[in-house]
């Protein structure tokens, strides 16, 4: 009898908890930690929710994990910054309706004494080559994130394989932690400008290289293909996507400032 | 209602070593049976088998009530009590310890309180009613063990060395308690003791356990009866 009671109470408990999670209209958006930590979503999502009545629940992961969430059908919409991978996943049929939304750019930061003397260079590829030549420490995200993907693409163009080198540290952590490790190690780090602006006051680092078109960081949004995963809320996801690339959405993105008053993202939906 | 305990051909061995061999006896009188015998003679084993804590290898224990054999073990177990040399003290108050046998018999709370008060008075522990039972002295613990066994007003009470490890003062209290019980004439008490003086002071019937057999020492009994 006692076991029957225990089982009963667990079932009741579960029902109680499940009921607490029922909400009318909401979608799950997989995005990246750097985007969430910038505070962008805190600014635009309330506007979107007010406009449409659809709630967006945000799960922040590395780009790789966010894309995988979409592929597995664990999200309705994916908002990341790794254009080549995104297009590949669309081509593979996992996602539909991909659109450019906005961009920011990457910068190379490091200790102000700049041991590899990359300051003044105009090409990121040259800067990476110099860092490798001088064997100065470089801290990599190493987590399949958008930033990591961008970094690997640049290494590829230098024809140097940094993997396994003594001066190349793959930390497998988010952008802020990677920056902080770079700070401690007096190392070079490739970072997105938004994260850099948000945290630079805590770091003894500065921007040593910027402005190369190769460092351009495009954000894209796409819906999980409802033909792959029939349960996804495709309609609501499309409402979100259309809103993001609409004038209202683009203006909202343009109006976002971080807590230090910096503008972090430039809308560029077509 | 009075219960008679009858042993027929009890045989028990531990690891090939026989302890009881074809042991038969009938406890058919009220009063105190004192069971004696050398160390390792099997006194405790016999008590544990009688109290249904252990099964004999062979033979039969039967309890008769007005010539009807009582069949269900649990009904029986609820009319007999056994006090072991080491009292298993529950980590609760003295009163809760003593109330335990009544609680498991689903007796009404008011009746429980009444009987607990009464029995604690009898063993002289009324003033320690709300004390944590684990903090009692060994003599008090033994008395609480007696109270806990007596609270159900058992038909048969088994006592295994009730005064083995306690001081003279507490021994005296327990012996007086046994004499009171004897005068009430309600229960059959079967006890073991290592103290010949005690056997003479409280016993009505003296039994010897020797070579696995139970024997009545008639000479002693008469003596006891004469002086008792």
């Amino acid at each position, binding site marked *: 009898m*006692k*076991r029957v009671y*225990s089982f009963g*109470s*667990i079932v009741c*408990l*579960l029902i109680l*908890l*499940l009921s*607490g*999670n029922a909400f009318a209209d909401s979608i*799950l958006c997989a995005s990246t*930690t750097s985007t969430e*930590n910038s505070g962008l979503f805190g600014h635009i999502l309330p506007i979107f929710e007010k406009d449409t009545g659809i709630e967006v*629940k*945000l*799960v*922040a992961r590395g780009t790789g994990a966010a894309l995988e969430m979409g592929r*597995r*059908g*664990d999200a309705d919409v994916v908002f990341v910054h790794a254009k080549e991978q995104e297009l590949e996943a669309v081509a593979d049929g996992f996602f539909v309706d991909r659109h450019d939304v906005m961009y920011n750019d990457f910068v190379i930061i490091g200790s102000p004494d700049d041991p590899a003397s990359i300051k003044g260079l105009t090409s990121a590829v040259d800067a990476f080559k110099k860092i490798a030549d001088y064997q100065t420490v470089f801290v990599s995200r190493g987590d399949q994130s958008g930033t990591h993907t961008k970094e690997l693409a640049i290494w590829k163009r230098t024809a140097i394989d940094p993997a396994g080198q003594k001066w190349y540290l793959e930390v497998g952590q*988010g952008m*802020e*932690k990677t920056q*902080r490790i770079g700070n401690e190690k007096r190392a070079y780090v490739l970072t997105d400008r938004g994260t850099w602006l*948000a*945290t630079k006051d*805590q770091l003894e680092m500065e921007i040593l290289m910027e402005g190369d078109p190769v460092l351009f960081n495009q954000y894209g949004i796409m819906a999980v293909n409802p033909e792959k*995963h029939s*349960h996804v809320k495709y309609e609501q996801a499309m409402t979100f996507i259309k809103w993001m690339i609409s004038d209202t959405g683009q203006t909202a993105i343009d109006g976002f400032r971080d807590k230090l008053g910096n503008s972090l993202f430039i809308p560029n939906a077509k | 209602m009075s219960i008679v305990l009858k042993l027929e051909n009890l045989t028990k061995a531990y690891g090939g070593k026989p302890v009881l061999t074809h042991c038969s006896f009938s406890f058919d009188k009220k009063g105190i049976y004192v069971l004696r015998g050398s160390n390792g003679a099997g006194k405790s084993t016999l008590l544990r088998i009688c*109290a249904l*804590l252990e099964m004999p290898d062979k033979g039969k224990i039967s309890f008769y009530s007005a010539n009807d054999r009582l069949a269900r073990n*649990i009904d029986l*177990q*609820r009319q*007999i*009590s*056994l*006090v*072991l040399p*080491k*009292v*298993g*003290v*529950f*980590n*609760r*108050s003295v009163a*809760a310890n003593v109330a*335990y*046998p009544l609680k*498991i*018999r689903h007796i009404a709370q008011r009746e429980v309180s009444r009987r607990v008060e009464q029995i604690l008075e009898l063993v002289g522990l009324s003033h320690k009613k709300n004390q*944590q039972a684990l903090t009692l002295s060994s003599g008090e613990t033994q008395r609480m063990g007696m109270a*806990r*066994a007596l609270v*159900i007003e058992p038909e048969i009470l088994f006592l295994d060395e009730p005064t083995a490890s306690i001081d003279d003062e507490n021994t005296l209290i327990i012996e007086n308690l046994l004499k009171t019980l004897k005068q009430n004439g309600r229960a059959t008490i079967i006890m073991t003791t290592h103290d010949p003086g005690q056997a003479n002071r409280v016993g009505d019937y003296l039994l010897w356990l020797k070579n696995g057999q139970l024997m009545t020492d008639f000479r002693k009994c008469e003596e006891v009866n004469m002086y008792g």
Partner: protein
Amino acid sequence: MAFILESFHSALILIVRLDAELLNIMLLSLKVSGSALISATIVGLPMAALLALTSMPLKGFFLNLMNTCMGLPPVVVGLFIYLMLSRSGPLGFMGLLYTSTAMITAQFVLALPIIVALCHSAIVSVDPVIRQAALTLGATRSQASLTVIAEARYGIISAIIAGFGRLMAEVGAILIVGGNIAGYTRVMTTTIALEADKGNFELALALGIILLGMALLINSLLLIFQRRAIVRK
């Protein structure tokens, strides 16, 4: 060291202000860990009692398993539950991923071995004379077993406190299966991880102090309850 004082100061301000968001996060932490703990106790205590009081086949193996699982890395549990609950996993149809139910499930898995192993050792360490005393006083076998479990109550409450400590401090599993969604699955530890990520160390530490305070409060309540239990019985 000034930053520690600063953090205490911020923690105090946060508590005094007690804004709705923080309150929600605290309550969710309690709800998730509390539900997981209660379910783990409801399931684990009878299991521990069965293991301790009956002889069953594979008992040794089972105990060994439970003891080993006490050290299960939360991220591994999180990943496993994630794969089970994912839309592409066997239980995906239930749509539980990124809900508090998923977090409770993961924490249940983490708490169960602790409850079973520690309750088992509490019950077996009860002196055998207790069971014997209960039987000699006329208890049925199941009444005697209940008496033994009641005697083990200190150890059982300690087991529950240990389980609660592990759950309240846990971040790896709930981050993976809960997703740290603001307002839905964001609890104290994941908030701390997030704020530390953002570089808001002071706020993170302040939240840590509040978390510690909550744990302290709950444990005190359990201990008072434990003490009451002795006096009343």
